[in-house]
Protein backbone atom coordinates (compact mmCIF):
# COMPACT_ATOMS: atom_id res chain seq x y z
CA UNK A 1 0.00 0.00 0.00
CA UNK A 2 1.10 3.50 -0.77
CA UNK A 3 2.10 5.66 2.21
CA UNK A 4 -0.51 8.37 1.83
CA UNK A 5 -3.23 5.80 1.66
CA UNK A 6 -2.17 4.22 4.92
CA UNK A 7 -1.76 7.61 6.59
CA UNK A 8 -5.23 8.53 5.49
CA UNK A 9 -6.47 5.70 7.58
CA UNK A 10 -5.34 7.52 10.72
CA UNK A 11 -8.38 8.77 12.59
CA UNK A 12 -9.54 12.31 11.69
CA UNK A 13 -9.35 13.47 15.31
CA UNK A 14 -5.77 12.27 15.63
CA UNK A 15 -4.88 14.10 12.44
CA UNK A 16 -6.01 17.45 13.88
CA UNK A 17 -4.22 16.85 17.16
CA UNK A 18 -1.13 15.84 15.22
CA UNK A 19 -1.13 19.06 13.11
CA UNK A 20 -1.78 21.31 16.09
CA UNK A 21 1.06 19.61 17.99
CA UNK A 22 3.51 20.07 15.11
CA UNK A 23 2.72 23.79 14.88
CA UNK A 24 3.03 24.25 18.65
CA UNK A 25 6.34 22.39 18.78
CA UNK A 26 7.75 24.27 15.79
CA UNK A 27 6.55 27.60 17.16
CA UNK A 28 8.12 26.92 20.53
CA UNK A 29 11.44 25.93 18.97
CA UNK A 30 11.33 29.01 16.79
CA UNK A 31 10.46 31.25 19.69
CA UNK A 32 13.33 29.91 21.79
CA UNK A 33 15.83 30.34 18.97
CA UNK A 34 14.22 33.56 17.78
CA UNK A 35 17.48 35.44 17.54
CA UNK A 36 19.16 32.87 15.31
CA UNK A 37 16.50 32.03 12.78
CA UNK A 38 14.29 35.07 12.66
CA UNK A 39 13.80 35.23 8.90
CA UNK A 40 13.17 31.56 8.48
CA UNK A 41 10.29 31.50 10.93
CA UNK A 42 7.36 32.11 8.54
CA UNK A 43 8.77 29.60 6.10
CA UNK A 44 9.25 26.96 8.72
CA UNK A 45 5.66 27.42 9.84
CA UNK A 46 4.47 27.46 6.25
CA UNK A 47 6.29 24.28 5.33
CA UNK A 48 5.07 22.52 8.43
CA UNK A 49 1.54 23.31 7.25
CA UNK A 50 2.31 21.97 3.80
CA UNK A 51 4.03 18.91 5.20
CA UNK A 52 0.92 18.15 7.19
CA UNK A 53 -1.12 18.58 4.07
CA UNK A 54 1.01 16.20 2.03
CA UNK A 55 0.65 13.37 4.50
CA UNK A 56 -2.72 14.10 6.04
CA UNK A 57 -5.72 15.79 4.53
CA UNK A 58 -6.61 19.34 3.55
CA UNK A 59 -8.64 20.12 6.67
CA UNK A 60 -5.86 19.31 9.12
CA UNK A 61 -3.55 21.39 6.92
CA UNK A 62 -5.93 24.37 6.98
CA UNK A 63 -6.19 24.11 10.76
CA UNK A 64 -2.39 23.98 10.96
CA UNK A 65 -1.93 26.91 8.62
CA UNK A 66 -4.44 29.15 10.42
CA UNK A 67 -2.83 28.21 13.70
CA UNK A 68 0.57 28.95 12.22
CA UNK A 69 -0.67 32.36 11.03
CA UNK A 70 -1.99 33.21 14.46
CA UNK A 71 1.17 32.04 16.24
CA UNK A 72 3.29 33.96 13.77
CA UNK A 73 1.38 37.11 14.59
CA UNK A 74 1.30 36.47 18.35
CA UNK A 75 4.87 35.38 18.85
CA UNK A 76 6.93 36.97 16.15
CA UNK A 77 5.24 40.22 15.24
CA UNK A 78 5.79 42.95 17.76
CA UNK A 79 4.11 43.55 20.12
CA UNK A 80 4.48 39.93 21.17
CA UNK A 81 1.53 37.97 22.61
CA UNK A 82 -1.02 40.30 21.11
CA UNK A 83 -3.14 39.44 18.15
CA UNK A 84 -2.89 42.72 16.34
CA UNK A 85 -3.82 43.10 12.72
CA UNK A 86 -4.24 46.84 12.81
CA UNK A 87 -0.74 47.52 11.76
CA UNK A 88 -0.49 47.43 7.99
CA UNK A 89 2.74 45.37 7.99
CA UNK A 90 1.33 42.58 10.11
CA UNK A 91 -1.84 42.46 8.04
CA UNK A 92 0.20 42.31 4.86
CA UNK A 93 2.51 39.69 6.29
CA UNK A 94 -0.41 37.49 7.31
CA UNK A 95 -2.11 37.98 3.93
CA UNK A 96 1.05 37.18 2.00
CA UNK A 97 1.49 34.19 4.24
CA UNK A 98 -1.98 32.94 3.33
CA UNK A 99 -1.61 33.61 -0.37
CA UNK A 100 1.67 31.72 -0.56
CA UNK A 101 0.09 28.89 1.36
CA UNK A 102 -2.90 28.82 -0.98
CA UNK A 103 -0.64 28.65 -4.05
CA UNK A 104 1.28 25.83 -2.45
CA UNK A 105 -1.85 23.97 -1.49
CA UNK A 106 -3.01 24.27 -5.08
CA UNK A 107 0.25 22.86 -6.42
CA UNK A 108 0.29 20.05 -3.91
CA UNK A 109 -3.31 19.19 -4.64
CA UNK A 110 -2.26 18.73 -8.25
CA UNK A 111 0.69 16.57 -7.26
CA UNK A 112 -1.52 14.51 -4.98
CA UNK A 113 -4.01 13.97 -7.76
CA UNK A 114 -1.33 12.77 -10.14
CA UNK A 115 0.10 10.49 -7.47
CA UNK A 116 -3.32 9.07 -6.75
CA UNK A 117 -3.92 8.48 -10.42
CA UNK A 118 -0.61 6.67 -10.69
CA UNK A 119 -1.56 4.53 -7.75
CA UNK A 120 -4.95 3.70 -9.23
CA UNK A 121 -3.31 2.90 -12.55
CA UNK A 122 -0.85 0.62 -10.85
CA UNK A 123 -3.73 -1.16 -9.09
CA UNK A 124 -5.69 -1.18 -12.29
CA UNK A 125 -2.67 -2.65 -14.01
CA UNK A 126 -3.14 -5.86 -12.07
CA UNK A 127 -6.87 -5.84 -12.62
CA UNK A 128 -6.31 -5.24 -16.30
CA UNK A 129 -3.86 -8.15 -16.38
CA UNK A 130 -6.45 -10.31 -14.61
CA UNK A 131 -9.14 -9.37 -17.10
CA UNK A 132 -6.74 -9.89 -19.97
CA UNK A 133 -6.22 -13.46 -18.85
CA UNK A 134 -9.95 -13.81 -18.34
CA UNK A 135 -10.79 -12.38 -21.74
CA UNK A 136 -8.14 -14.43 -23.49
CA UNK A 137 -9.34 -17.70 -22.10
CA UNK A 138 -12.97 -16.65 -22.32
CA UNK A 139 -12.72 -15.61 -25.93
CA UNK A 140 -11.02 -18.86 -26.76
CA UNK A 141 -13.16 -21.15 -24.67
CA UNK A 142 -16.45 -19.54 -25.58
CA UNK A 143 -15.75 -18.47 -29.12
CA UNK A 144 -14.51 -21.84 -30.28
CA UNK A 145 -17.79 -23.64 -29.64
CA UNK A 146 -19.76 -20.60 -30.83
CA UNK A 147 -17.78 -20.58 -34.09
CA UNK A 148 -18.47 -24.26 -34.53
CA UNK A 149 -22.18 -23.74 -34.01
CA UNK A 150 -22.38 -20.74 -36.36
CA UNK A 151 -20.25 -22.43 -39.01
CA UNK A 152 -22.08 -25.71 -38.86
CA UNK A 153 -25.53 -24.14 -38.92
CA UNK A 154 -24.50 -21.86 -41.80
CA UNK A 155 -23.43 -24.92 -43.71
CA UNK A 156 -26.61 -26.76 -42.95
CA UNK A 157 -28.81 -23.81 -43.85
CA UNK A 158 -27.06 -22.57 -46.98
CA UNK A 159 -25.23 -25.53 -48.47
CA UNK A 160 -27.92 -28.00 -47.62
CA UNK A 161 -28.10 -29.53 -51.09
CA UNK A 162 -24.35 -30.04 -51.41
CA UNK A 163 -23.76 -31.85 -48.14
CA UNK A 164 -23.98 -35.60 -47.90
CA UNK A 165 -26.19 -37.13 -45.23
CA UNK A 166 -23.25 -38.43 -43.25
CA UNK A 167 -21.64 -34.97 -43.27
CA UNK A 168 -24.92 -33.45 -42.16
CA UNK A 169 -24.90 -35.84 -39.29
CA UNK A 170 -21.29 -34.95 -38.48
CA UNK A 171 -22.11 -31.25 -38.46
CA UNK A 172 -25.03 -31.83 -36.14
CA UNK A 173 -22.78 -33.86 -33.87
CA UNK A 174 -20.31 -30.97 -33.78
CA UNK A 175 -23.08 -28.53 -32.90
CA UNK A 176 -24.16 -30.80 -30.10
CA UNK A 177 -20.63 -31.17 -28.69
CA UNK A 178 -20.03 -27.44 -28.97
CA UNK A 179 -23.22 -26.53 -27.14
CA UNK A 180 -22.50 -28.96 -24.33
CA UNK A 181 -19.03 -27.47 -24.03
CA UNK A 182 -20.49 -23.96 -23.93
CA UNK A 183 -22.94 -25.05 -21.31
CA UNK A 184 -20.13 -26.43 -19.15
CA UNK A 185 -18.09 -23.23 -19.43
CA UNK A 186 -21.09 -21.08 -18.56
CA UNK A 187 -21.61 -23.34 -15.56
CA UNK A 188 -17.99 -22.75 -14.51
CA UNK A 189 -18.33 -19.00 -14.88
CA UNK A 190 -21.58 -18.99 -12.94
CA UNK A 191 -19.98 -21.04 -10.18
CA UNK A 192 -17.03 -18.69 -10.03
CA UNK A 193 -19.26 -15.67 -9.71
CA UNK A 194 -21.35 -17.47 -7.10
CA UNK A 195 -18.17 -18.01 -5.10
CA UNK A 196 -16.95 -14.47 -5.64
CA UNK A 197 -20.23 -12.89 -4.64
CA UNK A 198 -19.71 -14.31 -1.16
CA UNK A 199 -23.40 -15.13 -0.96
CA UNK A 200 -23.00 -18.82 -1.61
CA UNK A 201 -25.39 -20.57 0.74
CA UNK A 202 -24.81 -24.18 1.59
CA UNK A 203 -27.81 -26.42 1.04
CA UNK A 204 -26.80 -29.36 3.21
CA UNK A 205 -28.66 -32.60 2.93
CA UNK A 206 -27.91 -36.28 3.40
CA UNK A 207 -25.95 -37.72 0.56
CA UNK A 208 -24.88 -41.24 -0.34
CA UNK A 209 -21.23 -40.77 -1.30
CA UNK A 210 -21.04 -43.99 -3.28
CA UNK A 211 -23.95 -42.82 -5.39
CA UNK A 212 -22.49 -39.34 -5.79
CA UNK A 213 -19.14 -40.64 -7.04
CA UNK A 214 -20.72 -43.06 -9.49
CA UNK A 215 -23.09 -40.38 -10.70
CA UNK A 216 -20.13 -38.14 -11.55
CA UNK A 217 -18.33 -41.01 -13.28
CA UNK A 218 -21.50 -41.67 -15.26
CA UNK A 219 -21.70 -38.02 -16.31
CA UNK A 220 -18.06 -38.21 -17.42
CA UNK A 221 -18.46 -41.53 -19.23
CA UNK A 222 -17.35 -40.03 -22.56
CA UNK A 223 -14.24 -38.39 -21.15
CA UNK A 224 -13.35 -41.52 -19.17
CA UNK A 225 -13.90 -44.10 -21.88
CA UNK A 226 -10.14 -44.59 -22.40
CA UNK A 227 -9.23 -44.47 -18.72
CA UNK A 228 -9.25 -47.03 -15.96
CA UNK A 229 -11.33 -45.82 -13.03
CA UNK A 230 -11.16 -47.45 -9.60
CA UNK A 231 -13.58 -46.51 -6.86
CA UNK A 232 -13.13 -47.60 -3.28
CA UNK A 233 -15.57 -46.66 -0.54
CA UNK A 234 -14.01 -47.57 2.79
CA UNK A 235 -17.25 -47.47 4.77
CA UNK A 236 -20.56 -48.77 3.56
CA UNK A 237 -22.97 -47.07 3.67
CA UNK A 238 -21.25 -43.70 3.65
CA UNK A 239 -24.07 -41.21 4.07
CA UNK A 240 -23.02 -37.70 5.12
CA UNK A 241 -24.59 -34.27 5.34
CA UNK A 242 -23.08 -31.99 2.71
CA UNK A 243 -24.19 -29.75 -0.12
CA UNK A 244 -24.27 -32.54 -2.66
CA UNK A 245 -24.54 -30.14 -5.60
CA UNK A 246 -21.29 -28.42 -4.72
CA UNK A 247 -19.37 -31.59 -3.86
CA UNK A 248 -20.60 -33.19 -7.06
CA UNK A 249 -19.11 -30.21 -8.91
CA UNK A 250 -15.84 -30.62 -6.98
CA UNK A 251 -15.62 -34.30 -7.92
CA UNK A 252 -16.65 -33.53 -11.49
CA UNK A 253 -13.92 -30.92 -11.89
CA UNK A 254 -11.20 -33.08 -10.33
CA UNK A 255 -12.08 -36.28 -12.20
CA UNK A 256 -12.60 -34.38 -15.44
CA UNK A 257 -9.21 -32.74 -14.91
CA UNK A 258 -7.56 -36.10 -14.35
CA UNK A 259 -9.21 -37.48 -17.48
CA UNK A 260 -8.21 -34.52 -19.64
CA UNK A 261 -4.63 -34.19 -18.52
CA UNK A 262 -3.51 -37.81 -18.45
CA UNK A 263 -2.72 -40.13 -21.31
CA UNK A 264 -5.13 -42.84 -22.43
CA UNK A 265 -5.25 -45.95 -20.21
CA UNK A 266 -4.06 -43.94 -17.23
CA UNK A 267 -5.53 -45.06 -13.94
CA UNK A 268 -7.74 -42.74 -11.90
CA UNK A 269 -8.39 -43.90 -8.35
CA UNK A 270 -11.12 -42.42 -6.22
CA UNK A 271 -11.46 -43.25 -2.55
CA UNK A 272 -13.93 -42.13 0.09
CA UNK A 273 -13.62 -42.57 3.82
CA UNK A 274 -14.93 -41.09 7.05
CA UNK A 275 -12.41 -40.40 9.80
CA UNK A 276 -12.30 -37.88 12.67
CA UNK A 277 -15.79 -36.68 11.75
CA UNK A 278 -14.55 -35.75 8.34
CA UNK A 279 -15.44 -37.00 4.91
CA UNK A 280 -12.13 -37.76 3.19
CA UNK A 281 -12.08 -37.99 -0.58
CA UNK A 282 -9.00 -38.66 -2.68
CA UNK A 283 -8.69 -38.44 -6.44
CA UNK A 284 -5.41 -39.81 -7.70
CA UNK A 285 -4.03 -40.41 -11.16
CA UNK A 286 -0.83 -41.91 -12.49
CA UNK A 287 -0.27 -39.30 -15.18
CA UNK A 288 2.64 -36.89 -15.39
CA UNK A 289 1.48 -34.83 -12.40
CA UNK A 290 1.85 -31.10 -12.02
CA UNK A 291 5.25 -29.41 -12.55
CA UNK A 292 6.81 -28.89 -9.10
CA UNK A 293 7.04 -25.13 -9.52
CA UNK A 294 3.33 -24.88 -10.31
CA UNK A 295 2.02 -26.84 -7.33
CA UNK A 296 1.33 -23.68 -5.37
CA UNK A 297 -0.63 -22.06 -8.17
CA UNK A 298 -2.95 -24.84 -9.26
CA UNK A 299 -5.88 -23.57 -7.21
CA UNK A 300 -5.53 -20.03 -8.56
CA UNK A 301 -8.24 -18.69 -10.80
CA UNK A 302 -7.41 -19.08 -14.49
CA UNK A 303 -4.46 -21.31 -13.69
CA UNK A 304 -3.44 -23.24 -16.76
CA UNK A 305 -0.47 -25.55 -16.65
CA UNK A 306 2.44 -24.63 -18.93
CA UNK A 307 2.53 -28.20 -20.17
CA UNK A 308 -1.17 -28.40 -20.74
CA UNK A 309 -2.45 -29.18 -24.20
CA UNK A 310 -6.11 -29.54 -23.27
CA UNK A 311 -8.38 -26.51 -23.39
CA UNK A 312 -10.23 -24.99 -20.47
CA UNK A 313 -10.77 -21.77 -18.61
CA UNK A 314 -8.54 -22.70 -15.71
CA UNK A 315 -11.43 -22.32 -13.30
CA UNK A 316 -12.06 -25.96 -12.37
CA UNK A 317 -9.59 -26.32 -9.53
CA UNK A 318 -10.29 -22.87 -8.09
CA UNK A 319 -13.99 -23.71 -8.02
CA UNK A 320 -13.20 -27.06 -6.38
CA UNK A 321 -11.18 -25.30 -3.70
CA UNK A 322 -13.86 -22.66 -3.19
CA UNK A 323 -16.66 -25.21 -2.83
CA UNK A 324 -14.63 -27.33 -0.41
CA UNK A 325 -13.77 -24.26 1.65
CA UNK A 326 -17.38 -23.11 1.98
CA UNK A 327 -17.82 -26.47 3.74
CA UNK A 328 -14.95 -25.44 6.07
CA UNK A 329 -13.00 -28.23 4.45
CA UNK A 330 -9.56 -28.40 2.91
CA UNK A 331 -8.16 -29.51 -0.40
CA UNK A 332 -4.57 -30.43 -0.95
CA UNK A 333 -2.50 -31.47 -3.91
CA UNK A 334 0.23 -34.06 -3.48
CA UNK A 335 2.48 -35.77 -5.95
CA UNK A 336 1.73 -39.43 -6.19
CA UNK A 337 4.39 -42.06 -6.43
CA UNK A 338 5.99 -42.71 -8.87
CA UNK A 339 4.16 -40.04 -10.91
CA UNK A 340 0.80 -38.37 -10.97
CA UNK A 341 -1.38 -36.01 -9.02
CA UNK A 342 -3.28 -36.76 -5.84
CA UNK A 343 -5.96 -34.46 -4.51
CA UNK A 344 -7.02 -34.97 -0.92
CA UNK A 345 -10.25 -33.40 0.26
CA UNK A 346 -11.29 -33.29 3.90
CA UNK A 347 -14.73 -32.00 4.78
CA UNK A 348 -16.13 -31.87 8.30
CA UNK A 349 -19.58 -33.44 8.04
CA UNK A 350 -22.19 -35.27 10.04
CA UNK A 351 -22.40 -38.93 9.20
CA UNK A 352 -25.19 -41.39 9.70
CA UNK A 353 -24.34 -43.59 12.66
CA UNK A 354 -24.01 -47.28 11.95
CA UNK A 355 -26.87 -48.18 14.30
CA UNK A 356 -29.47 -46.36 12.23
CA UNK A 357 -28.26 -48.07 9.09
CA UNK A 358 -29.17 -51.52 10.33
CA UNK A 359 -32.17 -52.71 8.51
CA UNK A 360 -35.14 -52.28 10.86
Amino acid at each position, binding site marked *: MNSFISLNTIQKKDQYIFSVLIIIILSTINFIFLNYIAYAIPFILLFSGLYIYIFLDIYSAVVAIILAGITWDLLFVKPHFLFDLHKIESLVTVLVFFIITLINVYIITKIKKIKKQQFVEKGLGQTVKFYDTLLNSLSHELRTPISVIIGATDNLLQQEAKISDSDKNNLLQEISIASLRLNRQVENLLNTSRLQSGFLQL*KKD*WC*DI*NELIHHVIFQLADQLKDHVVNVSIKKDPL*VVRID*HGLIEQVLFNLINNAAQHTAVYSVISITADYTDEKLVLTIEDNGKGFPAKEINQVFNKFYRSQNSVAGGLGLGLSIAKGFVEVHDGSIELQRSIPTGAKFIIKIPAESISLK*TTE*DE
Partner: protein
Amino acid sequence: MNNTEILVIDDEIQIRKLLEITLQSNGYGVVKANTAKEGLAAAAVSTSDLIILDLGLPDENGQLVLKKLREWYVKPVIILSVKNNEDDIVSALDNGANDYLIKPFRTAELLARIRSVLRNSTVSQDVPAIKYEDFEINFSTRSIIMNNAPVKFTTTQYELLTLFVKNEGKVLTHQYILGEIWGADYIAQSQYLRVFVAQLRKKIEKNPNKPTYIITESGVGYRFVAKEIE
Protein backbone atom coordinates in the same frame (compact mmCIF):
# COMPACT_ATOMS: atom_id res chain seq x y z
CA MET B 1 -50.64 -40.10 -35.05
CA ASN B 2 -52.51 -38.74 -32.07
CA ASN B 3 -54.47 -35.62 -31.33
CA THR B 4 -52.84 -34.74 -28.04
CA GLU B 5 -52.56 -31.00 -27.65
CA ILE B 6 -49.85 -29.35 -25.57
CA LEU B 7 -49.96 -25.79 -24.26
CA VAL B 8 -46.50 -24.20 -24.01
CA ILE B 9 -46.26 -21.20 -21.64
CA ASP B 10 -42.80 -19.63 -22.02
CA ASP B 11 -41.72 -16.06 -22.62
CA GLU B 12 -38.62 -16.98 -24.66
CA ILE B 13 -39.51 -17.06 -28.33
CA GLN B 14 -36.64 -19.42 -29.15
CA ILE B 15 -37.74 -21.93 -26.56
CA ARG B 16 -41.32 -21.71 -27.79
CA LYS B 17 -40.16 -22.27 -31.34
CA LEU B 18 -37.91 -25.18 -30.36
CA LEU B 19 -40.70 -26.80 -28.36
CA GLU B 20 -43.17 -26.25 -31.19
CA ILE B 21 -40.92 -27.93 -33.75
CA THR B 22 -39.99 -30.77 -31.41
CA LEU B 23 -43.55 -31.44 -30.34
CA GLN B 24 -45.18 -31.07 -33.74
CA SER B 25 -42.66 -33.35 -35.38
CA ASN B 26 -43.59 -35.93 -32.76
CA GLY B 27 -47.26 -35.69 -33.56
CA TYR B 28 -48.45 -33.35 -30.82
CA GLY B 29 -50.56 -30.30 -31.44
CA VAL B 30 -49.09 -27.10 -29.95
CA VAL B 31 -50.71 -23.99 -28.49
CA LYS B 32 -48.34 -21.23 -27.39
CA ALA B 33 -48.55 -18.47 -24.79
CA ASN B 34 -45.79 -16.06 -23.82
CA THR B 35 -47.08 -14.62 -20.57
CA ALA B 36 -48.80 -15.97 -17.47
CA LYS B 37 -51.96 -14.06 -18.37
CA GLU B 38 -52.05 -15.44 -21.90
CA GLY B 39 -51.24 -18.90 -20.60
CA LEU B 40 -54.06 -18.98 -18.08
CA ALA B 41 -56.47 -17.69 -20.70
CA ALA B 42 -55.27 -20.27 -23.23
CA ALA B 43 -55.57 -23.08 -20.66
CA ALA B 44 -59.16 -22.06 -20.02
CA VAL B 45 -60.27 -21.99 -23.65
CA SER B 46 -58.09 -24.62 -25.33
CA THR B 47 -58.50 -28.34 -25.04
CA SER B 48 -54.87 -28.93 -24.10
CA ASP B 49 -54.02 -32.31 -22.61
CA LEU B 50 -50.80 -31.14 -21.04
CA ILE B 51 -49.17 -27.85 -20.11
CA ILE B 52 -45.45 -27.08 -20.27
CA LEU B 53 -44.95 -24.14 -17.92
CA ASP B 54 -41.82 -22.02 -17.55
CA LEU B 55 -41.31 -20.91 -13.95
CA GLY B 56 -39.65 -17.63 -14.96
CA LEU B 57 -42.43 -15.70 -16.61
CA PRO B 58 -42.24 -11.91 -16.90
CA ASP B 59 -45.65 -10.99 -15.56
CA GLU B 60 -46.27 -13.46 -12.77
CA ASN B 61 -44.41 -15.95 -10.59
CA GLY B 62 -44.64 -19.39 -12.18
CA GLN B 63 -45.52 -21.02 -8.84
CA LEU B 64 -48.52 -18.75 -8.57
CA VAL B 65 -49.58 -19.53 -12.13
CA LEU B 66 -49.31 -23.21 -11.26
CA LYS B 67 -51.46 -22.77 -8.16
CA LYS B 68 -54.07 -20.87 -10.15
CA LEU B 69 -54.03 -23.57 -12.84
CA ARG B 70 -54.42 -26.31 -10.27
CA GLU B 71 -57.63 -24.77 -8.94
CA TRP B 72 -59.38 -26.29 -11.93
CA TYR B 73 -56.89 -27.82 -14.36
CA VAL B 74 -56.52 -31.55 -13.62
CA LYS B 75 -54.37 -32.66 -16.55
CA PRO B 76 -50.57 -32.95 -16.34
CA VAL B 77 -48.30 -29.94 -15.96
CA ILE B 78 -44.56 -30.16 -16.68
CA ILE B 79 -42.37 -27.39 -15.28
CA LEU B 80 -39.43 -25.82 -17.10
CA SER B 81 -36.86 -24.38 -14.75
CA VAL B 82 -33.27 -23.16 -14.78
CA LYS B 83 -30.59 -25.06 -12.90
CA ASN B 84 -29.68 -24.58 -9.23
CA ASN B 85 -33.30 -24.04 -8.36
CA GLU B 86 -34.03 -27.37 -6.73
CA ASP B 87 -36.10 -25.72 -4.02
CA ASP B 88 -38.31 -24.17 -6.69
CA ILE B 89 -38.73 -27.56 -8.30
CA VAL B 90 -39.71 -29.16 -5.01
CA SER B 91 -42.28 -26.43 -4.34
CA ALA B 92 -43.61 -26.73 -7.89
CA LEU B 93 -44.06 -30.48 -7.37
CA ASP B 94 -45.78 -29.71 -4.07
CA ASN B 95 -47.97 -27.21 -5.89
CA GLY B 96 -49.20 -29.92 -8.21
CA ALA B 97 -46.71 -30.12 -11.07
CA ASN B 98 -46.38 -33.65 -12.43
CA ASP B 99 -42.80 -33.36 -13.56
CA TYR B 100 -40.03 -30.94 -14.35
CA LEU B 101 -37.25 -30.30 -16.83
CA ILE B 102 -34.12 -28.26 -16.34
CA LYS B 103 -32.99 -25.84 -19.03
CA PRO B 104 -31.00 -26.64 -21.08
CA PHE B 105 -32.86 -29.89 -21.57
CA ARG B 106 -32.39 -32.74 -24.02
CA THR B 107 -35.15 -33.45 -26.49
CA ALA B 108 -35.30 -37.17 -25.76
CA GLU B 109 -35.74 -36.36 -22.08
CA LEU B 110 -38.58 -33.95 -22.83
CA LEU B 111 -40.41 -36.48 -24.97
CA ALA B 112 -39.95 -39.23 -22.40
CA ARG B 113 -41.39 -37.00 -19.66
CA ILE B 114 -44.36 -36.07 -21.82
CA ARG B 115 -45.10 -39.71 -22.65
CA SER B 116 -44.72 -40.64 -19.02
CA VAL B 117 -47.08 -38.04 -17.57
CA LEU B 118 -49.67 -38.66 -20.28
CA ARG B 119 -49.53 -42.39 -19.60
CA ASN B 120 -49.79 -41.90 -15.84
CA SER B 121 -52.83 -39.75 -16.21
CA THR B 122 -54.65 -42.33 -18.29
CA VAL B 123 -53.63 -45.74 -16.93
CA SER B 124 -54.86 -46.92 -13.56
CA GLN B 125 -52.36 -48.79 -11.41
CA ASP B 126 -54.93 -51.15 -9.94
CA VAL B 127 -53.35 -54.47 -10.88
CA PRO B 128 -52.52 -57.52 -8.73
CA ALA B 129 -48.96 -57.88 -10.01
CA ILE B 130 -46.41 -56.06 -12.14
CA LYS B 131 -43.58 -57.73 -14.01
CA TYR B 132 -40.33 -56.02 -14.94
CA GLU B 133 -37.27 -57.29 -16.73
CA ASP B 134 -35.40 -58.19 -13.54
CA PHE B 135 -38.13 -58.69 -10.96
CA GLU B 136 -41.82 -59.09 -10.37
CA ILE B 137 -44.01 -57.64 -7.63
CA ASN B 138 -47.08 -59.50 -6.47
CA PHE B 139 -49.23 -57.03 -4.55
CA SER B 140 -51.69 -59.62 -3.30
CA THR B 141 -49.06 -61.81 -1.65
CA ARG B 142 -46.76 -58.85 -0.89
CA SER B 143 -43.83 -60.67 -2.44
CA ILE B 144 -41.04 -59.92 -4.85
CA ILE B 145 -39.90 -62.56 -7.25
CA MET B 146 -36.52 -62.55 -8.93
CA ASN B 147 -35.30 -65.33 -11.24
CA ASN B 148 -38.52 -67.24 -10.51
CA ALA B 149 -37.89 -67.38 -6.76
CA PRO B 150 -39.21 -65.11 -4.01
CA VAL B 151 -36.58 -62.80 -2.53
CA LYS B 152 -36.62 -61.63 1.06
CA PHE B 153 -37.50 -57.95 1.36
CA THR B 154 -38.08 -56.23 4.70
CA THR B 155 -41.41 -54.50 5.19
CA THR B 156 -39.91 -51.07 4.64
CA GLN B 157 -38.03 -52.19 1.55
CA TYR B 158 -41.19 -53.72 0.15
CA GLU B 159 -43.27 -50.64 0.88
CA LEU B 160 -40.66 -48.34 -0.61
CA LEU B 161 -40.40 -50.38 -3.78
CA THR B 162 -44.18 -50.55 -4.06
CA LEU B 163 -44.43 -46.79 -3.67
CA PHE B 164 -41.91 -46.35 -6.46
CA VAL B 165 -43.59 -48.87 -8.74
CA LYS B 166 -47.03 -47.37 -8.23
CA ASN B 167 -45.65 -43.99 -9.23
CA GLU B 168 -43.69 -45.25 -12.18
CA GLY B 169 -42.14 -42.47 -14.26
CA LYS B 170 -43.11 -39.86 -11.71
CA VAL B 171 -40.61 -37.91 -9.67
CA LEU B 172 -41.26 -38.33 -5.95
CA THR B 173 -39.75 -35.77 -3.58
CA HIS B 174 -37.75 -36.93 -0.56
CA GLN B 175 -40.34 -35.38 1.74
CA TYR B 176 -43.19 -37.16 0.00
CA ILE B 177 -41.51 -40.57 0.21
CA LEU B 178 -40.50 -40.07 3.84
CA GLY B 179 -44.02 -39.01 4.75
CA GLU B 180 -45.58 -41.98 2.94
CA ILE B 181 -43.27 -44.68 4.30
CA TRP B 182 -42.09 -43.45 7.69
CA GLY B 183 -44.78 -40.90 8.54
CA ALA B 184 -44.96 -37.14 8.94
CA ASP B 185 -42.43 -37.09 11.80
CA TYR B 186 -39.67 -38.34 9.53
CA ILE B 187 -40.00 -35.81 6.71
CA ALA B 188 -36.63 -34.24 7.53
CA GLN B 189 -34.81 -37.54 8.10
CA SER B 190 -33.73 -38.15 4.54
CA GLN B 191 -30.64 -40.09 5.66
CA TYR B 192 -32.89 -43.16 6.16
CA LEU B 193 -34.13 -42.83 2.63
CA ARG B 194 -30.56 -42.78 1.21
CA VAL B 195 -29.73 -45.97 3.04
CA PHE B 196 -32.90 -47.78 2.00
CA VAL B 197 -32.58 -46.70 -1.61
CA ALA B 198 -28.99 -47.99 -1.62
CA GLN B 199 -30.29 -51.31 -0.21
CA LEU B 200 -33.08 -51.54 -2.77
CA ARG B 201 -30.66 -50.86 -5.58
CA LYS B 202 -28.37 -53.61 -4.39
CA LYS B 203 -31.29 -55.97 -4.59
CA ILE B 204 -33.01 -55.04 -7.85
CA GLU B 205 -30.41 -53.32 -10.01
CA LYS B 206 -28.03 -55.30 -12.19
CA ASN B 207 -25.35 -52.73 -11.36
CA PRO B 208 -26.33 -50.76 -8.25
CA ASN B 209 -23.79 -48.08 -9.22
CA LYS B 210 -25.50 -47.55 -12.55
CA PRO B 211 -29.14 -47.75 -11.51
CA THR B 212 -31.70 -48.10 -14.26
CA TYR B 213 -34.84 -48.50 -12.13
CA ILE B 214 -34.49 -46.07 -9.24
CA ILE B 215 -33.09 -42.87 -10.67
CA THR B 216 -31.86 -40.07 -8.43
CA GLU B 217 -33.31 -36.66 -9.19
CA SER B 218 -30.55 -34.54 -7.74
CA GLY B 219 -31.71 -32.35 -4.87
CA VAL B 220 -35.33 -33.26 -5.50
CA GLY B 221 -36.05 -36.93 -4.99
CA TYR B 222 -36.26 -40.21 -6.89
CA ARG B 223 -37.96 -41.48 -10.00
CA PHE B 224 -38.81 -45.09 -10.74
CA VAL B 225 -38.30 -45.87 -14.40
CA ALA B 226 -39.38 -49.05 -16.10
CA LYS B 227 -37.90 -49.69 -19.49
CA GLU B 228 -40.17 -48.13 -22.02
CA ILE B 229 -41.90 -50.49 -24.38
CA GLU B 230 -42.35 -48.52 -27.58
